[in-house]
């Protein structure tokens, strides 16, 4: 009797573990695979200059390409920062300046998928952003900071210069979701620094 219940318990535990493993793995797989589909949507965007969805029922579309050669990062940025779009790629914050244009462009992504590399980013690193019109802009990392999630003064959009702000959750290795802190990388257009 006791043996039997132990058997059932072990079966339940093993199956739950498999489900959890698949669910956790799915998050990472989705993050990787989606970028492939988005890549083809992106080339469509560049060719036709129109919004193109990576898959027909998607609620988002690629708006920019983010490159950080130093960390071998080449990602497609999606419109919006809803849970749905962030699962597939970094999200562009609608309220911020358009990618590569004047003002502060804000891009957010998950700390354990696309923006894991932010923990290695240092001052002086170069980040390249391409917009849908094929315009490219190089930004140099100026400041790394940790802020409260409500401290949106950091999102100031009235900047006259060309700025790029990358945002992700902090601390990087935390296990639980929903912490208060955000890691913010601020970069300024290379032209404006040399000018």
């Amino acid at each position, binding site marked *: 009797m006791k043996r039997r219940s*132990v058997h059932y318990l072990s079966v339940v535990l093993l199956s739950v573990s498999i489900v959890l493993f698949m669910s956790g793995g799915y998050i990472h797989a989705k993050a990787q695979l989606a970028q492939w589909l988005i890549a083809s949507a992106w080339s469509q965007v560049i060719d036709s200059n129109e919004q193109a969805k990576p898959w027909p029922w998607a609620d988002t579309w690629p708006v920019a390409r983010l490159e950080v050669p130093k960390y071998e990062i080449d990602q497609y940025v999606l419109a919006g920062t809803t849970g749905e779009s962030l699962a597939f790629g970094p999200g562009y914050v609608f309220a911020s300046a358009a990618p590569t244009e004047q003002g502060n462009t804000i891009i957010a992504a998950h700390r354990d998928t696309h923006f894991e590399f932010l923990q290695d980013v240092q001052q002086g690193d170069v980040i390249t952003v391409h917009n849908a019109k094929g315009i490219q802009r190089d930004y140099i990392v100026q400041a790394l900071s940790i802020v409260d999630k409500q401290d949106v003064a950091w999102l100031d959009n009235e900047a006259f210069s060309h700025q790029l702000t990358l945002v992700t959750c902090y601390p990087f290795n935390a296990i639980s979701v929903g912490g208060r802190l955000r890691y913010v990388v601020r970069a300024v257009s290379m032209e404006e620094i040399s000018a």
Partner: protein
Amino acid sequence: MKTSPGLDHHLLSSLMNCMLYSWGIGFAVSLVLMGLVFMSTNAHAEINDELVLDKVTSLSDLQSGQLAFRAEKGHYLVSPKLNTEVDIEVNGLLARVTVSQTFTNPSSLWQEGVYVFPLPETAAVDHLRMKIGERIIEGDIKPKTQAKKIYQQAKNEGKQASLIEQQRPNMFTTSVANIAPNDSITVVIEYQQMVSQNANKFSLRFPMAITPRYIPGVPIDNTEEISHFSGEGWAVNTDQVPDASHITPPILLTDSDTSNRANLSILLAAGFALGQVNSSYHQIEEVIVNDNTRKIRLINDVPANRDFELVWQANDQQAPQAALFKQYKNGEDYALLMITPPNKLNIDSISRELIFIIDTSGSMDGTSMKQAKTALHYGLTQLRPQDSFNIIRFSDDLDSLFKQAKVASRINLDTAHDYVNWLRADGGTEMAPALERALQANQVNEGLRQVVFLTDGSVGNEDELFSIIERNLGKSRLFTVGIGSAPNSHFMQRAALFGRGSHSYIGSEDEVRQKMQSLFNKLSHPVLTDIKLDIAADSVVEMWPKVVADLYLGEPLLLTLKSATLPDEIIINGVYGNQPWQKKVALQGGGQSEAVSVLWARRKISGLMDEYRRAGEESDLIKTDIVNIALAHHLVTKFTSLVAVDKTPVRPVSEKLNTQAIAINPPAGSVMTQFPQTATPATLQLLLSLILFLTGLLLRWRRA
């Protein structure tokens, strides 16, 4: 296996024991680790709450990782403190507000204070004075970049200086350079504002939602600062600003005497016999000067953490119907005219057609969808039997409750509630077809046609949508309701503007009822539309805003005029509930006020800022216009700042200046209310999976 059962058994049991121990130890270790991680993240989460306040009585008690780099090098920056003294003089419809911010530097280092604070969106900031001891230095208005240069130069030369900049129309920063050790500098800012009026209630709000926290290092939007600081030992660390709240509590709140505080006094001269005067959130004491005038002050000075609001009414419930203020300045006449539109007629008898559009795209998933559905259910209960209605839902496809709007009968309403219950958020956001469908559909009855649009507005093709609204609007009116914590406010406002309706936001489940109630109040009362000014042909009057928006229930008509010579009389024409409405106003008499020209200029700048945003490439001309008006009227705008500099240097250049920023929460209604959530549960799931897997395995082993 059968050949040596003894050995086999022995091997098996020792292997099992070994596994058991290693697993046990592993499990314990991972539990401890998990606990630690959870605790550390919880600690992060709580730092902002009051919980931590009594725990942290001195900085050395703070052991969390965020402060470690400071502790290591032994650098604690004692931040400047800020006391705010607010004096408000209300004169009829006008309010002159004087805000004195005293920056105190309790440290032994020279400091720069940077303070971000909210003001009402319509505030016209036109005055800056810096008080150092007995001396007063007047501020000058300058183009933004020039003002910044003047300030920077003074700062580097060791002179005391202050700078007021506009970050957003309702968000400003004060910077104060070279506050001497253990000394203070007072910055006095003055602004002009209009009292708000809704039906017979007058109100005035002073925002002071300040979460007392400090952001050392790089102030907002100040890139020079970064290069200035880098390479100066600890200054590199200042760039890595940890959450300001980690530093704030020990300095600010352990001792209530030293926290950021505000005091407020008001001289309320209503211009009519006052009835009730109430403060919405604070305790006040009143002194009655005469029937029309009261002196009001806060009973105690308060921690500056809650907005102040004063609401007053006329004694006999009969609020004044009109008001006129005039000013003669530099050869020109300015006038401010307020008229209360009629609000007696009720349209209970008039039928109307109400179309709800609900966004069921994937981005609405979760709480947004829940709020939208609650709002929709509430909206359905507000329909009257003579109304007709329909619901259109859209994501990447669209469908509707009925083919055509149907009367709000019990049966139809029940069907509608069921329909709403079944809505799920999924798929893309194809807004255009839904808008076209809602606006183009043939109207079934003769009354009003109102479209209520519930969405988070997460679209990138706003301009296309605006032109669809403009083209198809016809008799319909569009009311946008922004759902969720960060709706696309640009879309909400502009869509409602093009749709000649109004916009509102629902940010949480608790707000649904109240916000929908006020929306339906507007929907069920007639609107004053097509407001035009009829002025004698021989006088040229410049009026801002150029086009008067439709007025919904309780909203007063406010006109600001400028002319070489004001006409004796103006006629205001409009349409009120399908009937022509006319008001003749003689511009005779009225109060004299220095504020009128400032308010006129502020409204002109608002109007020009709208044009500036729309202009795109040709925006430079408009910018020049804005700068010229701002300079002429001494106003702080996006392109102009007030700067005050003392002539004598006080800080020896050899001594370093430390920059401390004092930040507060941006007011609700700013572009974003918080950063997005950016972590997935993947790690947690994988870890749990591993633990469960090992446990399951162990159980099976033991069984075997």
